[in-house]
């Protein structure tokens, strides 16, 4: 349910960008959501669609780039296979999260005068 509060934060960011560039409207919103970021992509989409009515984003579809989780060896011995313990099989060092925790506003398409 925190997807609603994430959408609220997203709108604050969009409004700041719109003001900074004197935009007339927003045409597209692109976000990146990691697989283990703790955000449900479908709930996020529903929340966004509810929020955007009668706002500057009314005509802006939300494009979601879902990023798969990837754990790797911090010493460069490659990726950890999915479902395996999160340690490097070669050097036994704890794995590092290389991708998958993104909650990022990537890009906007703005209509400017």
């Amino acid at each position, binding site marked *: *349910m*925190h997807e609603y*509060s*994430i959408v609220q*934060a*997203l709108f*604050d*960011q969009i409004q700041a*960008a719109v003001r900074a*560039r004197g935009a*007339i409207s927003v*045409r597209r919103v692109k*976000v990146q959501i990691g697989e*283990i*970021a*703790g*955000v449900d992509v479908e709930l996020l989409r529903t929340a966004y669609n509810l929020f955007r009515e009668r706002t500057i984003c009314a005509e802006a579809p939300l494009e979601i780039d879902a990023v798969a*989780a990837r*754990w790797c060896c911090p010493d460069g011995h490659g990726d950890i296979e999915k*479902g*395996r*313990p*999160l*340690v490097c099989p070669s050097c036994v060092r*704890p*794995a*590092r*999260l290389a991708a998958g*925790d993104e*909650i*990022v*506003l*990537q*890009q*906007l*398409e*703005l*209509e*400017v*005068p």
Partner: protein
Amino acid sequence: MCQACGCGDSNVVPVALNERILAVNDRGAQHNREHFRNAQVSAINLMGSPGAGKTAVLEATARALGESIRIGVLAGDLATDNDAQRIRAAGLAAESITTGTACHLDAEMVHKGLHRLTGWHELDYLFIENVGNLVCPAVYDLGQEVNVVALAVTEGEDKPLKYPTMFQKADLVLVTKVDLLPYLPNVRIDTIRENLSKVMPVPRMIPVSAFTGEGIGHWIQWLRTVQIPRVAAQSAGAR
């Protein structure tokens, strides 16, 4: 204006931002963290499902530590002041943060809660008991030094695999209510440990029972290992 022919129509331009959507919360959390570190208070974000035994762990911690160590609690709940009342009855300073409909605490709620928790900067440990929920609280940094997740044996062995985000962020998992294991033939501590190793890069787990006191000593030992990084001279001087 349209650059191609000068017709006066508007243009659509791409604007790359690449900003974390929760950047405002992140800044609030960093602000809290500076407060905690300046005061040398270990802030612990205690998370877990409703009924995982978070409050009971705090009560047991209070019993075990007596008055040797000063502990305070900010207890987050959707409604009621019950948890904070229980914790005060156990002898600890506690204030509740009632979130209404919000399923998690955020940095600003914690900041406002601190204003009400008199004398918090004299504490050794500040526990932030998050709203009972295995999903949402994991997403919000509060400024804590460490994350502790309470997982009751009654919740089953596979919770770490079902809620990887929560457990991935945990510095320690307290497996609670282990006194109930004799009644749970299908729950094995070793399986919980194995499942944690698939979602936590450094799996640390302590089985405890707030009821019998089993494991509480081990938990207290772990608490004593929580280090508070020294604050840079510049930010310390700014206060």
